């Protein structure tokens, strides 16, 4: 058995795993950033519509977006993007955009949940001081909502990292694809997949730890 691992890591091969990991992390981070930007905008539009009855058309568009991207498999979305919509872009960009746009739909719902959990009294206090609706949203509601949305957001990020393992299908050398490649040479599938699984796990554990730290820092006002 140890022989299998030795073969799987032989020569320069151990470096490939880290190159794959780098690709996986780049896609994940890029995608979550895109997802956050889309998610926050969509959530704010839906929330503004609910609270103030404005932005009706924008809200409709957001609803359609969320329905489509949550209702279809990300694998199919990726293939469609690659084959039809974003043909002219590099594979990495397609990967980041696919997962970013997909994740945006989930992040939007997570943040909207956080926004709607904020007591109306907070909005009233803000507007009674003469702050504009936008200022109330930005300085009072959003910071509190983000704090509440952090745990489910963390889950979304972890799910996203693991989801990116399908990106090999369109030819991007991510962590999982590296394992496939090595197996193609060694004809021994067990060890590379175990190595890759452990690497995903370590990344997720580190991330969980970091987000817990952040949560702790943000919740200092609870004590």
């Amino acid at each position, binding site marked *: 058995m140890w022989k299998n691992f030795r073969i799987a890591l032989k020569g320069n091969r151990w470096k490939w795993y880290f190159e794959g990991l780098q690709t996986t992390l780049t896609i994940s981070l890029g995608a979550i950033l895109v997802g956050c930007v889309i998610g926050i905008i969509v959530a704010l539009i839906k929330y503004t519509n609910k609270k103030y009855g404005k932005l009706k058309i924008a809200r409709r568009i957001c609803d359609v977006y969320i329905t489509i991207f949550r209702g279809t498999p990300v694998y199919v979305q990726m293939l469609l993007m690659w084959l039809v919509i974003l043909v002219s872009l590099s594979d990495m960009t397609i990967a980041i955009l696919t997962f970013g746009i997909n994740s945006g739909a989930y992040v939007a719902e997570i943040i909207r949940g956080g926004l709607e959990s904020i*007591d109306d*009294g*907070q909005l*009233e*206090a*803000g*507007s*009674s*001081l*003469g*702050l*504009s609706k936008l*200022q109330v949203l930005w*300085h*009072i509601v959003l*910071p*509190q909502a983000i*704090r509440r949305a952090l745990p489910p957001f963390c889950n979304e990020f972890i799910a996203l990292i693991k989801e990116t393992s399908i990106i090999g299908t369109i030819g991007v050398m991510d962590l999982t694809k590296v394992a496939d490649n090595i197996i193609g040479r060694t004809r021994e599938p067990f060890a590379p997949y175990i190595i890759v699984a452990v690497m995903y796990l370590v990344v997720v554990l580190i991330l969980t730890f970091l987000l817990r730290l952040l949560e702790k820092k943000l919740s*200092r*006002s*609870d*004590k």
Partner: protein
Amino acid sequence: MEQQEKNTVLSVKNLHKYFGKLEVLKGVDIDIHKGDVVAVIGPSGCGKSTFLRCLNRLEEPTSGRIEFNGETVFKKERREWKAAWKALQAKKGTDEYDQTAVNEAKLAYQELRKKEKATEKSIQKNLDKHRQKIGMVFQQFNLFPHLTILQNITLAPVKLKLKSKEEAEQTAMDLLKRIGLEDKANVYPSTLSGGQKQRIAIVRALAMSPDVMLFDEPTSALDPEMVGEVLKVMTELANEGMTMVVVTHEMGFAKEVANRVIFMNEGVIKEENTPKEFFENPQDERLKDFLSKVLM
């Protein structure tokens, strides 16, 4: 006459408010002058909180007129038209049904809506400005839990660019010193008692140097022990000449501090008087009943 108008801070005319079909305010009229301390009392569900919240339009009135420092902050008078319209329609089918009058009413309605829209547009432009000068204190304090006390107080003045950060912090510290809570400047609201939170909430409103302060049952969510400290701050404010409208169940405060006491019931002001007359010689039957229950 002019002098008097100048001194009117809030002027409310024929204010109506519906929640769906339920009419909560059925025509409230009142002028509040500079330096007035108006205590609003009444049984629960009588519309007193709704009335107060309509004054800075946290609650949207249905019709009527509100002026703040002589500037319109709410004006909708469609109700009068509706009454006239109903009267016209009631005659439908009879000989008296007057088609020309109906047509005129329709035209008048369109005119009215156009005017209302224009008024509302100009009001919305300035509403936030007006609200800066109408301080409000809530039953549930509504401090911002993610900000320190100092940040709670300075947020609005700084973000609205009324003061620099340093100035705002200086004012905040001065105000905190006055209520003896300067050592709490850098803690978060969750560490404070209810009474302290409410005093901070008052200071937060004061930091905007408002022309009038609205209090919505400021002591109702407090432990009995802490009511006193909040009333003390409010009394000091009143003595300094702050114009205040206070919805309250604290009869002692109404009696000692207010210069006008108002009894609201079923969506209208049933009785208004000086505290002395109000408590010693109530006229309205429902008020007598109410006072006998709360004063014992």
